[in-house]
Every structure is written in C-alpha cells, then in structure tokens.
C-alpha cells in the first residue's frame, strides 16, 4: 500500500546566525500515521515542527503540506490550509485571558463561524474528548495542572477537526500515568478521527506505544525514518545510546511485554 504523502520536506536548510540547525533535510509524512521525531537537545526538532507549520521561514529548501508550499501561498489560501492542522505547543500556549472552554471555542467561532452558544457546547465535547472533566471548561489556564493544560491544548488543537496534528513534547512534565493516558488518547483519536500525527518527543515509552514510524534527527538531517525496531538497529553511536541505553532497554522491554 502506498499511502498519500501529506507533508513533504525537501532539502531544508535552517540557520540561526552562524549556527546551522538543518542542512539538506528530507522527510515524508504519510496520511494516517503517527510519526515520532527524536533527537538530542538542540538538534532542531521543534524548529522542524515550526518550519512545517510555517512559523519559521527556512533559509533554503521546500516544505509542502497537502502538496502546497505554505510560504508561497497568498494569505487567505494559507489560512485555509492552516485550518487543516492543529498544533499543540510545548507549554500548551492556551490564551490566559480566556477560560478553557473559550480557548477551544475560539477557532470554532472565528473560522467555522458558529454562534457562541453552539461553539461553547461543541467545545465542551472536545474537552471531554481530550479527557477533561466538565467543570474544567469554566476554569482559566492558570488554575489547571500541567496535565490538564496539555489536554486542554489538545482539545483546542482538535477544535476544527484537523487532518494533521502537530504535538511538541506532549508528555513532557507529565507523571507516568498521565503520560501513558495521553499516549492512549492520541492513538484513540488517531484511529477515530483518521488523523496524521507529527510527534516531537523525548519520551521513549511514547515512541514505543504510539508511533508507527520514528525519524531520528542528527547531524542536521534525518538520519533514519522507519518503524522503531528498524531504527533501533541503525549503526550510529547516538541512536545506539538512545535506544539501547538503560531507559531505552526498559521501554523496549515494556513495549514487547505489553505487545505479548
């Protein structure tokens, strides 16, 4: 089966000052898969995410989402495409002056043009979908715990029923139980809504339990992009240290035991 390519990164170069983050980076993401992006600190995982969603303008190279080059599109066409993806930022990035329900309702009101009442109702469902209790909707982001902020941010990212979901370290700062629940949630939502998920993470358990493929960023490019067991066999010092270090072994063990 040849799946449709929804994100196509070709020859990407990102440079900040004299520091080159990406050099001639290529990556394909296929429809319906969960792809995990891993790499050491400072290898430009978040930068790659921000480049794909159009927040960072690359020095060279091309990024195509749904076959369109975001940066070359006129403003209104670009907004159209941007509605088809949802982004969960590392620290949630909920608007602190709005309640959680209003945060989720915002894109529904602005883009889908729903009346406020309908948007609030639908926002309630999205929040429940993300696994938040009902009363959380009335709270402000500063009143929520870290895990709840991540869930609320996920609900906002899902508000417009996106086709691609970008997650930047979704389980960072969560306790193992919440993190595992979040992993399950992502897989459930992917299966239910047919999402494509672009996941930047450091969490080995998340990689093993959710990702169909893993892309390793190293030496300014994608070193390998394949199912996790294949990637773990790659002959590279960093990959070996990452996947076969003590934490990696524990996660592998857990994953294989869990899988039977």
């Amino acid at each position: 089966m040849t799946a449709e390519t929804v994100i196509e990164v070709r020859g990407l170069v990102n440079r900040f000052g004299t520091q080159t983050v990406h050099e001639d980076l290529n990556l394909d993401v296929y429809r319906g898969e969960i792809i995990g992006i891993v790499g050491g600190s400072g290898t430009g995982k978040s930068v790659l995410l921000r480049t794909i969603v159009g927040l960072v303008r690359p020095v060279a190279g091309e990024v195509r989402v749904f076959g369109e080059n975001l940066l070359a599109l006129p403003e209104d066409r670009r907004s159209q495409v941007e509605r088809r993806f949802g982004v969960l930022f590392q620290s949630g990035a909920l608007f602190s002056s709005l309640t959680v329900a209003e945060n989720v309702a915002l894109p529904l009101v602005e883009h889908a043009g729903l009346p406020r009442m309908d948007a609030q109702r639908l926002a309630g469902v999205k929040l429940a979908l993300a696994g938040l209790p009902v009363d959380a909707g009335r709270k402000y982001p500063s009143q929520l715990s870290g895990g709840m902020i991540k869930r609320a941010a996920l609900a906002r990212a899902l508000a417009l029923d996106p086709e691609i979901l970008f997650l930047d370290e979704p389980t960072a700062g969560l306790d193992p139980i919440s993190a595992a629940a979040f992993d399950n949630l992502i897989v459930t939502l992917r299966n239910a809504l047919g999402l494509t998920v672009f996941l930047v993470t450091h969490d080995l358990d998340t990689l093993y339990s959710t990702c169909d493929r893993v892309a390793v960023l190293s030496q300014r490019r994608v070193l390998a992009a394949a199912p996790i067991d294949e990637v773990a066999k790659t002959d590279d010092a960093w990959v070996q240290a990452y996947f076969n270090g003590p934490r990696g072994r524990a996660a592998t063990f857990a994953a294989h035991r869990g899988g039977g």
Partner: protein
Amino acid sequence: MATATFPGSAVLSRDAGGARLSLAGDWTLPHYPALQQRATELAGSIDAAVTLDISRLGALDTSGAFVIAELLGSARTQALAQDEALPPARRALLKTVGDAIDTYCTGVKRRRDAGFVVTLERIGRAMHGFWRQTAKLLAFIGITLQGFAATVWRPHRWRVTSLVSHIEQTGLDAVPILALLSFMVGCVVAFLGSTALASYGATVFTVDLIGFAFLREFGVLLTAILLAGRTASAFTAQIGSMKAREEIDAIRTLGLDPVELLVLPRVLALLIALPMLTFIAMISGVVGGAVVCMAVLKMSPSMFLTMFQADMSLTQFLVGMAKAPVFAFMIAVIGCMEGFKVAGSAQSVGEHTTSAVVQSIFVVILLDALAALFYMEMDW
C-alpha cells in the same frame, strides 16, 4: 476530504415497517448549525422503536458525531458504535464521542443571574477586597519594619551593592525626566499666576505662587507620582516575575529571607532617592517659573531671587520635604507587596503591576491631602 461537500440531512419517514430515520450527506463542522437545528426539531420524535439507516452517510467528524449522539441518546450511540456493518474508524469515532458526551452531559449547568442580588454581591466583594487589601498592606508594612529592625544592628547583613544599584535605577536614572517635567510644570504655574494675578496688578506675586507651590506641594507630589509610575511598577514587575518563576520559593528554601534580600534594599533605596529627587524637582520647578517670570513679566533674575528669599521661609521647604520619606516608603512597600502577590502566570504580573501603580498614586494623593489638612491646622 473537505472537498465536494453536500450538506447532511436527517429524514424521519413512517411506513409499514414503522418509523425510520435516514441520515445522509456530510455531517461535518461547516454544516453544524443546520444539523443542530434539524436535530432539535427531531429531538422529541426519536424513540427506541425508530430504525436507523445510515447507509448514505457521507463524511463524519466529531461535531457531526456529536449531533448524532445527542439525537440518538447515549445508549443508542453506543449500540451503533458496536454495529459491525460500519467501518472500524467510524465506529471508533462514534464510541469516542459517545463516551465524551457521557461525561460532558452529566455536568450540571450553572445558571447566570444578573439582577439586584448580583450587584449587591459585587459591591460586597469589592468592599471585602478593599478591606483585605488594606489589612495586607498593613501586614506587609509590619513585616518590612520587622525585617529592618532585625538587620539594622547587623551591618554585615546590609545589602549595600543591591542598595546602591537600586538608588541608581530609581534615583539617578530618573533625574532627567523628573527635572524636565518639573521645569515644564513650573513654567505652566508661572503662566497661570501671571495671567490670574494680572487683573489685580499683582503679577509680582507669581514668585510667591511658584515658591509655595513647589516647595510645599508640587516638588514632592510630582516626584512621588512619577516614581509611583516608574518605580512601583518596576518593583512589582521584578519581584513578580521572580515569584512567577519560583525564585522567591528558592530563596526561602535556601534559608534566606526574601524581605531582607529583595524588599529592604528597594525600600531603603527609595527612602534615600526620593527626597533627593524631590529637591531636584523643587529646584527645576522654581527655575522653570523664574524663566517664565523673566520672559513674560520682564523680571530680572536678581529681583526674582530677592523676592523669593524674602517671602519663602525654611518652613515651606521642610514641610514639603517631610512628606518625601513617607511617600517613598509607601510607594516602595506597595510596589514590593504587589510583586509578592503575583501568582503563576505572566498575566498576573501585568495585573499586579497595574494595581501597584494605581494604589501607590492613590495612597500618595490621599496622604498629601491629609498632610495639607494637618499643616493647615498647625498653621505651618
């Protein structure tokens, strides 16, 4: 996926086999309002006996699934989600949304009331808030004085570097703006005096007006209001962002006293800087007045000085100067206290910064009015 949409529809038909509900078309977000309305119309007439036909159902997303789930009810949705005839992705979607609705709909909705009681409640809350704020301010003043009493005898615990740095930031750095401001207000007061006193032929008393105004009131008031805007906000922002990043907690867990480390140097710095700035403000204000007197009233500088010397007693200067340390203390304490009240977010820093400026200006003007009354009774 989002292309070639045709709006979703729900048709309830009755034939020999009983009632039958057919869902067709795209049940997606763009059609949500219409679908929602249709669902509300049908809501009463769907019961367990109605058979369901979803064979012509097009695209389905969470909002569409939500409408379906609301229309059919929880139990029916869950049953539909078990239906083997549906593709697994669609079943998973229905199940997920059905589960979500179960938790969502069990919530109680709070009713909003915007009447007389609410107004009373708001007034009550505001009064209570004001009272608590005053109590907090008094408590914080107490803590500050206590901290001061504990360290004043122990020179090795004085934070001299921090003190000097704050004197520079709050005092020296404020000199240009303050001098300019007072100079201009001095000019304005002199213009005012020369215009108002002209009808009595007493324009020469403009000198007295400027002298009294700047020595007694304007010098210290302008300085205090400028510093309330400039320094109280800076103190709140500095301490508030430290609070938001848990730095204050770190100070405490290291066994250090945040009052001694952060509050005392700021309060003392302002206690030293504000009287000095007040002096500068008085001088520039009087100079501003003098310039206008020379330009408009053709008064020579020596005449201005002679009159100034003859009519102004030292009391006027001291009466004005005496207020400076009080204002300095209140501005610094309010600035620091609001910083400590910051909770969590960056937004909170902003709110408390605003609050610090408003409060310190309020307190400064209140105290100035009280002092004016007091001085009048004392015949100073």
